């Protein structure tokens, strides 16, 4: 079964007041259950693309399909439920006064009855191993804990796909490893936006490189990371001493 969950075709986008095409003919197709890394240097348009997948920026040119739904005003609520976006700065995503309320925010907006909310919240926190944080204040959590809770806030909406924008930013090595393990255990289709190449290798069999607002390479992560010329041409670099072939 190769049911496409995310199908993006010829996306073009310019921020108001600028002539720079941040997205310039971006096309991509991600099948159900796939884990794909989206690699690219700073400013290559990755975050702009993530915002498009949640209908947070208005489509200017091109098309986006999520399963059988075309991106558009009438499908927004369902698209936002299907595609769970985890943003780069967890502080933007955690805005309530307790972890419980934050995780309940999405499902409550979806109309989950109050009597069932607690169970939904506990299940989502359980999936990320953060049950113990339920009554804590989000501002006071560590970087790794915030990331887990941020992921739980979208898991609570029962999404088909997860889109994570630079999920390793601000995490220590242990936090990074735990996050990789957590993602590996989740059944959803995943698009991991990152410039952390070892993390991409660890979590995603397939990678795409975005540069200048379009996909310039698409293939197995191992092959892409072994192509030193391709990486260099796109301002991507493996950490010092890292050897792909040794893994």
């Amino acid at each position, binding site marked *: 079964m190769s049911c496409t969950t995310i199908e993006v075709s010829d996306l073009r986008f310019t921020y108001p007041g600028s002539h720079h095409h941040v997205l310039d003919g971006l096309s991509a197709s991600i099948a159900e259950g796939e884990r794909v890394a989206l690699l690219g240097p700073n400013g290559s348009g990755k975050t702009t693309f993530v915002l498009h997948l949640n209908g947070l920026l208005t489509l200017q040119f091109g098309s986006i399909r999520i399963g059988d739904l075309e991106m558009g005003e009438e499908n927004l609520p369902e698209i936002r439920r299907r595609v769970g*976006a985890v943003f780069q*700065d967890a502080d*933007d995503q955690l805005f309530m006064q307790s972890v419980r*309320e934050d995780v309940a925010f*999405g499902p409550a907006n979806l109309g989950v009855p*109050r009597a069932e909310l607690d169970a939904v919240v506990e299940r989502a926190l359980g999936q990320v191993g953060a049950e113990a944080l339920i009554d804590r*204040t989000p501002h*006071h959590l560590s970087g790794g*804990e915030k990331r887990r809770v941020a992921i739980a806030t979208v898991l609570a909406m029962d999404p088909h796909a997860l889109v994570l924008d630079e999920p390793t930013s601000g995490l220590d090595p242990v936090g990074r490893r735990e996050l990789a393990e957590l993602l590996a255990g989740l059944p959803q289709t995943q698009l991991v936006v990152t410039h952390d190449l070892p993390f991409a290798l660890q979590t995603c069999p397939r990678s795409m490189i975005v540069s200048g607002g379009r996909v310039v390479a698409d293939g197995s992560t191992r092959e892409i990371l072994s192509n030193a010329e391709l990486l260099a041409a796109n301002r991507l670099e493996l950490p010092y001493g890292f050897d792909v072939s040794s893994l």
Partner: protein
Amino acid sequence: MAGGHVEGRVGGVGHLVVHGHSPVHRLAPEAKVVATFAFVICVALTPREQIWAFGVHAAVAISIVALAGVPTRVLLARLAVIIPFLTFAVLVPFVAGGEEVDVLGVGLSRDGLWGAWNVAAKASIGATASIILSATTSVPEILKALTRLRVPRVLVSIMSFMMRYLDLLVDQLGRMRTSMTARCHDPRWLWQAKPIASSAGALFVRSYERGERVHQAMLSRGFSGTMPDTEERATPGADWARAALPPVVALAALLSAVVL
């Protein structure tokens, strides 16, 4: 793991709450909001000539401050917000016209003196009541209470966004202060605050952008303009009864003041 400060100071307006477990803290927020409102109305309606009635109001307010365990230091610091009103009140007897009375050799307007007393008494008692509310009830609790009290959702949403941005602004200010202090600038006093003032623009832009990102994160989780009320809890009748006590005493004082 996160540090041990589970409660206490959060960045932003969260810091108004003085953490505690007093009966005042535990009272249902909607009961506190209504009681505070009713109490302030009673104080505002009390005729200025009935000085003893203000004594009753003040006694009520002070007992609740004590019951809530709000430190006097905190109360006085927050009462500072009414200083502009008091300054204005002090000027009134000098400038108002009408019959004059002699105070320490200075001729002051009798009406002006009453006016000053009126403003000072009502402002300080009213402010104390709101300080008690904000010191024992967090902002989200107050907003949820307003929703439950059937205050139109649009108003509650606007207020929650104002609080949100204010919160972010205070938070950003804190971070900028930290980074300036780290560079050996000590902006403890107003007249040293020039670098802060000059970066206010940057602060505003950063807060605005952050606010936008928070808003986007809310939209992506199905936010459609109103905060969901995620708690299933009816206001306990006992809370209404307890919260009614202070405004009832104030009302009794008001009624006797008007009738007598």
